[in-house]
């Protein structure tokens, strides 16, 4: 029953998505092309000229791409789990419409999360394809980085949806973007190894879900992953996602059953 109810909410999102999917595909292709072009090739040429030791002996493009893959999953997750949630509960009230049917608040939450997972899978697949086009893939293991990137996205989407449903205004989202998303994007090992950070800051970076995703995606893409650390990263990300799901089941209920 749980799955079939969530499935019904997913169908709702899919019906809506039919209207906008073309536009989202363009940006899903364009984003990695722009970033890999500018940072990977443009900036990368400068970086590679200095043969930095921190990159583990690979070209900057090859180092950067899997990090960007994980970071782009975070971006997609943020996009799907902030405004769409507030819009559904506050502006369109389509959540309330669903709550008047057999669906329970948790089904509505799970359905939305399933849709987010689907969008993550789409965007990450496109990203990996663009990576391959740029010659930024070091190993066929990059295919295993795809589900890891989706999981990274879910580690953001679940807690953020759980939070977004408690909001009445969208101001909190710009705070979230400014003080969470951007710092994570810049300092979680996407653009340079965390080992470049001051010693006291490194543990902070290791604790973020984005670093966990970046580190695993990168080691898979470079073909250097080992089982122990890989399982550690996956477990960490799964734990954050699970905590978000548990929280969301409560916050959705509190918001929709008043």
């Amino acid at each position, binding site marked *: 029953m749980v799955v079939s109810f969530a499935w019904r909410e997913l169908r709702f999102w899919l*019906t809506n998505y039919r209207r906008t999917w073309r536009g989202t595909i363009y940006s899903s292709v364009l984003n990695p092309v722009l970033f890999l072009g500018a940072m990977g090739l443009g900036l990368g040429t400068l970086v590679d000229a200095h043969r930095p030791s921190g990159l583990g002996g690979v070209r900057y493009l090859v180092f950067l791409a899997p990090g960007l893959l994980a970071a782009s999953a975070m971006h997609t997750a943020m996009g799907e789990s902030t405004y769409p949630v507030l819009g559904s509960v506050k502006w369109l009230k389509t959540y309330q419409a669903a709550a*008047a*049917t*057999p669906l329970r608040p948790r089904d509505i939450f799970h359905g939305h999360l399933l849709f987010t997972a689907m969008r993550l899978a789409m965007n990450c697949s496109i990203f990996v394809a663009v990576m391959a086009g740029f010659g930024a893939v070091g190993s066929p293991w990059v295919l295993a980085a795809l589900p890891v990137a989706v999981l990274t996205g879910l580690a953001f989407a679940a807690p953020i949806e759980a939070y977004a449903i408690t909001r009445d205004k969208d101001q909190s989202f710009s705070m979230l973007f400014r003080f969470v998303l951007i710092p994570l994007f810049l300092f979680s090992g996407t653009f340079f190894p965390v080992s470049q950070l001051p010693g006291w800051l490194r543990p902070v970076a290791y604790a973020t879900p984005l670093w966990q995703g970046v580190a695993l995606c990168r080691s898979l893409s470079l073909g250097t992953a080992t089982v122990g650390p890989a399982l550690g990263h996956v477990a960490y990300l799964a734990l954050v996602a699970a905590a978000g799901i548990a929280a969301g089941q409560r916050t959705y209920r509190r918001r929709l059953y008043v």
Partner: protein
Amino acid sequence: MPATDVLIHARGLAKSFGSATAVAGIDFDLHRAEAFGFLGPNGAGKSSTMRMIGCVSPPSGGELSILGLDPVADGPAIRARLGVVPQQDTLDVELTVRENLIIYGRYFGLPRGVIAERAARLLEFVQLADRAEDQVEPLSGGMKRRLTIARSLINEPEILLLDEPTTGLDPQARHAVWDRLYRLKQQGVTLVLTTHYMDEAEQLCDRLVVMDRGKIAAGGSPRDLIGRYSTPEVLELRFDPAGHQQAAEKLMDAPAERMEVLADRVLLYTRDGDAALTAVRGLGLEPLTSLVRRSTLEDVFLRLTGRRLED
């Protein structure tokens, strides 16, 4: 009526939000195939009651059973058999008229063919068949309301809940909605509605309760309530605002069972309005306007609460 025909049973039903009490312990029974109304002003606790019946608001106290089930434990099973028309439209304005019905049908787990057949029939019923493929956004308020009603019927509900079904609509659109609801009633659909329009309550409800400040002040058929709490006729008098209060004092001597002094009018409750008007003139009073009319639920509400329904 046999007990199995009681679809909703409430005793001491209460709802509070923090320290604010919305519903302060109400009793009612809803029977199959009747049209039952909650009449009261804004803030009377009508919508809170409807949300509890709709299983999206756990009661704070008292008993509530719907279709013999517990709304807290059996929410999904109950909601599968309810139709809900909320106070504010919750249509998906980015989808078409027909897609809104299809989405809703899927929420109830109905097979595709059944949804398609019902959607076509319901759009016909609410006179929106020619708009089926249009976006919802540009529809008028009355059309959106009718679409919401069609949507609420997609699962062929045993009980249809309507929270202020015509609030915010112009008179023509209201009549169109009433007409559809009246037809549903004729088809034997059980209706529960809230309203602060006494004409809506009189037209649609077989039985109603008058709610005020979270409590039920009185209950019965519209005719019963008027018979019990008002006189057959009402004489409405309007005086020059400067002499309004003075005139009201003089009217104490007029032959009426009861008098209400409103800000702009004086109401005399009487068996014979024309005779009362003659008597008023006999007191040396000449109203600017006078109107003899039959008592309505508005008068019942005024009598029970000392306040007016719509302000």
